[in-house]
């Protein structure tokens, strides 16, 4: 039913858009939990789980007890779920979507015979064609001869029927577990010394880095959680300027954070995890001096970023804009690579740029003399104007004054300044006055 129709029937209908990403995350979490009922658990569509419980039910006291246990636990967690146990994957799928239950061993045809043919995982067209033929239940299909059925409705229907009845094997396809980068250590006696924590950390780091190496990953963030005897938890988290799995270099970055923690009555458990990882190919150890220099620079950026914040360790990257403020971007050095500046064309640009500062006592175009930062300047030579128009597709408050005519003014006092005039803006003291601003200083 379309939403408009539903609203027409029930105007008070509360609707919410589906959040597919969160739903699939929740299903993946449920799949991890369902591992308690069988080693092979796979997702079944977007709303189902399929577990292979061969050889498991006796641990729970039989199939019925197992299903009761599953239902009770899901109900306690607040989840409404329907479950079914059957000898084949197709039969379990069909039964779980039509009421649930248990099909006894060897009685598959009786167990699912009463279900409609749509339960067989066939497409809509086949189901409608079957309904037109008067074949509405699975039990109607079973006695029919196979060859005409396959010729009329395609091989898909026969395959699904065979899979549901066990004539065709269909294993549970459990996707591989995503690697989990976390290691932990519990201690028989609490520790409190900084050196002890660092020693424990280095053991954990060795294990974590081995695990990262197996999966060819490098950590970008590493988190150390320390559980204290009084059940409090302290957390130290560091960032890395590039993916890394060298235990010694990561341990060095933890030194400051470990120094600051309060261990109170002692720490009895350590947990180390890498919440953020990136692919990192194996690299040859003991590379040339260039590689060592890269490593040393990355270490510097990591330690700087961990102390002053990664958003304060910046790099200048060129940008496609003629507006001076937007002709370059300041981006975190840890997440970008240097880009060569584009070819210099056009007029010269100043070496330093600052927010526009108003110039007083300016007269003439270009001004013959002006005052700026409480100093009087006399123009020796002026180059310009260079007209820069605002980018109409951005609404920049600084550029609401319209066009700017930029001049390079060499003063007799020495400084070479970048002045601009806003011809479209009205002056402060009247329509005749001009607005001159300084925005930069040349070499």
């Amino acid at each position, binding site marked *: 039913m379309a939403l408009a129709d539903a609203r027409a029937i029930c105007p008070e209908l509360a609707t919410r858009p589906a959040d597919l990403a969160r739903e699939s995350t929740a299903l993946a979490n449920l799949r991890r939990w369902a591992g308690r009922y069988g080693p092979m658990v796979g997702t079944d569509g977007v709303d189902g789980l399929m577990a292979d419980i061969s050889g498991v039910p006796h641990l729970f006291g039989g199939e019925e007890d197992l299903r009761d246990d599953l239902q009770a636990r899901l109900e306690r967690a607040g989840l409404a779920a329907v479950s079914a146990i059957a000898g084949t994957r197709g039969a379990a799928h069909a039964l779980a979507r039509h009421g649930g239950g248990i099909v006894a061993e060897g009685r598959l045809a009786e167990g699912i015979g009463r279900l409609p043919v749509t339960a067989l995982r066939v497409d809509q067209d086949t189901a409608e064609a079957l309904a037109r033929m008067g074949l509405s239940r699975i039990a109607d299909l079973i006695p029919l001869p196979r060859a005409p059925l396959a010729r009329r409705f395609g091989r898909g229907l026969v395959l699904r029927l065979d899979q549901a009845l066990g004539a065709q094997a269909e294993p549970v396809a459990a996707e591989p577990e995503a690697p989990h980068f976390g290691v932990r250590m519990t201690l028989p006696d609490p520790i409190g010394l900084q050196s002890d924590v660092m020693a424990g950390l280095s053991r954990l780091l060795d294990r974590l880095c081995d695990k990262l190496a197996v999966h060819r990953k490098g950590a970008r963030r590493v988190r150390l959680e320390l559980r204290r005897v009084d059940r409090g938890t302290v957390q130290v988290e560091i960032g890395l300027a590039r993916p890394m799995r060298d235990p010694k270099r990561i341990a060095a970055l933890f030194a400051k954070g470990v120094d600051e923690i309060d261990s109170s009555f002692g720490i009895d458990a350590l947990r180390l995890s890498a919440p953020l990882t990136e692919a990192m190919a194996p690299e040859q150890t003991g590379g040339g001096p260039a590689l060592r*220099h*890269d490593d*040393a*620079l990355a*270490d*510097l*950026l990591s*330690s*700087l970023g961990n*102390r*002053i914040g990664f958003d*304060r*360790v*910046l*790099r*200048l*990257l*060129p940008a496609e804009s003629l507006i*001076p403020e937007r*002709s*370059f971007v*300041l981006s975190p*050095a840890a997440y970008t690579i*240097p*880009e*060569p*500046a584009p070819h*210099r064309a056009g007029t*010269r*640009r*100043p*070496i*330093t*740029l*600052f*927010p526009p500062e108003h110039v007083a006592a300016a007269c003439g175009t270009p001004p013959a003399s002006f005052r700026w930062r409480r100093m009087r300047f006399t123009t*020796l*030579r002026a180059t310009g104007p260079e007209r820069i128009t605002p980018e109409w597709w951005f609404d920049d408050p600084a550029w609401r004054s319209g066009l700017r005519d930029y001049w390079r003014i*060499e*003063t*007799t*006092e*020495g*400084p*070479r300044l970048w002045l601009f005039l806003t011809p479209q803006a009205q002056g402060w003291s009247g329509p005749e006055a001009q607005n001159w601003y300084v925005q*930069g*200083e*040349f*070499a």
Partner: protein
Amino acid sequence: MRMRPEPPSGDAFTLHKGRMHEAEGRGRRTFALFQALRHLGPLVWILPSHAPEMPMLRGLPRGVGERLHLLRPAGEADLLWCVEEALRTVPVSLVVAEPEKPLSLTAGRRLQLAAEAGGTTGLILIRQDAGCNATETRWACEPLASTGADSTLHHWILTKNKKGTFGSWMVNWNGASAAFHMVSETRERYEPAEPPR
């Protein structure tokens, strides 16, 4: 021992490696960029986070923009820590810092030791007369008005030098390449003229 005389440097503007230097005056940023061109390798420029003046990428000399790392620490203590940490890192070639306050004797000495440990060159851009005793050289840099239309003159005066003499140079450097020209200042002659031969 460490007190061996260092080999004579290439020209007047070469800063000793493993030492701290200072530059003051209106042209100190220009002088820092001039030095950035003469140091190959990664550059670190440390500014307070609230400083309005930013280097503009398109105006920087060729090859400097992609080597530059800009740090904007929030406080003075963080800034000094960043300078020290960057100076200790061997591959960094030049560290330029703009502290707000004059360096204390301890801070100056610490930075000197850090530069020595890393073999890097440090250049502190200071306000007028806010220098530190521990510095190796101190430069007073002023832009100069020039009579010619295509020349950008700078007046660089060496006002302190622990291992050499003072000096004063008029330099024509256009802020784009490493090339520069010494300009002899016009003045009135005060020594007696050479006898005609």
